[in-house]
């Protein structure tokens, strides 16, 4: 029997895949951006469905709140967003589609053939406080180091952005 959860899952999956497809095919760049966002929200929905609320929230915060806005701004900045993107050559689209479909087929074949074996240990709490403890842990399975490394990465990214963007700004004016 189909219960509510299953329906929701399939709805989310459909949302994700359909809007992802539209994101890569739409010739209206702004719409493509919105579709991408919808697709990412669909993924967040799947995380919710899987009861990984923290990841879902992170996904929404970063993608909806950050990356989408950034992409939209850069669209405004660099495109005449009212005009359609140029049409691609049919051959190119076809070959890309064939390549993607073949890839998909091959991988799925492998996936379905492969018997995954996981643990049968009981699931542990994936609540935020567990995540927090793990993240701050300095021991064997702690993520303290990556946590600090991320800050380095962010620093690097920020400096990179500023260097690049500021240079172009001074140049433009």
């Amino acid at each position: 029997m189909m219960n509510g959860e299953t329906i929701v899952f399939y709805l989310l999956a459909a949302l994700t895949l359909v809007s992802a497809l539209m994101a890569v095919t739409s010739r209206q760049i702004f719409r493509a951006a919105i579709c991408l966002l919808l697709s990412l929200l669909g993924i967040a929905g799947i995380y919710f469905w899987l009861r990984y609320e923290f990841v879902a929230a992170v996904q929404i915060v970063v993608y909806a709140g950050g990356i989408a806005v950034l992409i939209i701004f850069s669209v405004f900045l660099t495109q005449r967003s009212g005009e359609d993107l140029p049409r691609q050559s049919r051959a190119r689209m076809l070959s890309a589609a064939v390549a993607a479909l073949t890839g998909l087929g091959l991988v799925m074949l492998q996936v379905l053939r492969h018997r995954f074996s996981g643990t049968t240990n009981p699931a542990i709490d994936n609540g935020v406080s567990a995540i927090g403890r793990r993240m701050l842990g300095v021991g064997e399975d702690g993520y303290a180091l990556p946590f600090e490394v991320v800050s380095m990465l962010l620093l690097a990214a920020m400096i990179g952005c500023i260097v690049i963007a500021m240079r172009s700004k001074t140049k433009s004016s």
Partner: protein
Amino acid sequence: MWSFSKLTDLIHAWLYETFSPAWALALEMVMVGVAAIGLFAMLGLVLVIMERKVSAYMQIRLGPNRVGPKGMLQSLADTLKLLVKEGMTPNGVDRVLFNLAPLVAMIAAMLLLAPIAFAKDFQIWDLNIGVLYITAISSLNVIAILMAGWSSNNKYSLLGAMRSGAQIVSYELSAGLSILTIVVLSGSLQISDIVTSQSNGWWIFKGHIPAIIAFVIFLIAATAETNRAPFDMAEAESELTGGFHTEYSGMKFALFFLAEYINVFVVCAVGATLFLGGWMPLHIGSLDWFNHAMDYIPSSIWFFGKTFFLIFVMMWFRWTFPRLRIDQLLTLEWKYLLPIGMVNILLVTVIAILKWHF
């Protein structure tokens, strides 16, 4: 004492007795949905009339007083009128996104209601990342605004939308930081935990100076995030006429309006929950008679009282201050609020680890 939880339990039990589980669940869902819509609409009506009255009194005038007793039906008349006003779609707009945008705004606003604890044990969904959830969902607003602004094919809308995009996004940081201050103190993201952690005093009292600083930052950031004056860049009337909703009319516009007010309500509710103890009554140390007296006031009244107080403060801001310019607004965030917020977090960490809070 009368409480919501008993009522909901009763209904729940009755439903499951009378109907088969599937039907009961469905019915329950419908009831929650209807209740949510009702709450939503009520809040909208009340907030609109409140805003008008507050502004009127600050502006030495009377405000609406002719529709219904003391003008209380004014916002009802407005709603009805908007309901039967033409909601048109101009040519040349991106029809899909244009019509989708108010819907997105509504969905975002509605979803925000889920984790709010309206009273003792009365919460739609007490999920374990409560406040993070609210932060996440409220960032969907940006998308609604950008969608509306872009799809309107109107220069004012576009400019307004981009402004508010930049603004909401920036102020999310300080809002997040000030929320974190309380999270550090209470050690949980779950709304119910945060409320219970304040049973012996609200965080604004027992969190020392960092909590107060965080509270102020939160108020400012909340005002900015809901696009209200003095941060109403998006619809800066004297510059961009209507901002992102310039082209919207009738109910489509009303939905934005409603969503905006619900957002105001939600951020104030979050503020009340984090800093003012949610539905927790005011308790003073060991003043027992006082505490008992306070306990007699229903928890929902405490919650709404605090929330409406914060809303009033935001209205007070709105009707007092001039508007900031967009660059000043961003400077305020990046030069003042963010560094202060970061230092504040460190401070509160020390306090939390030393257990200096009560």
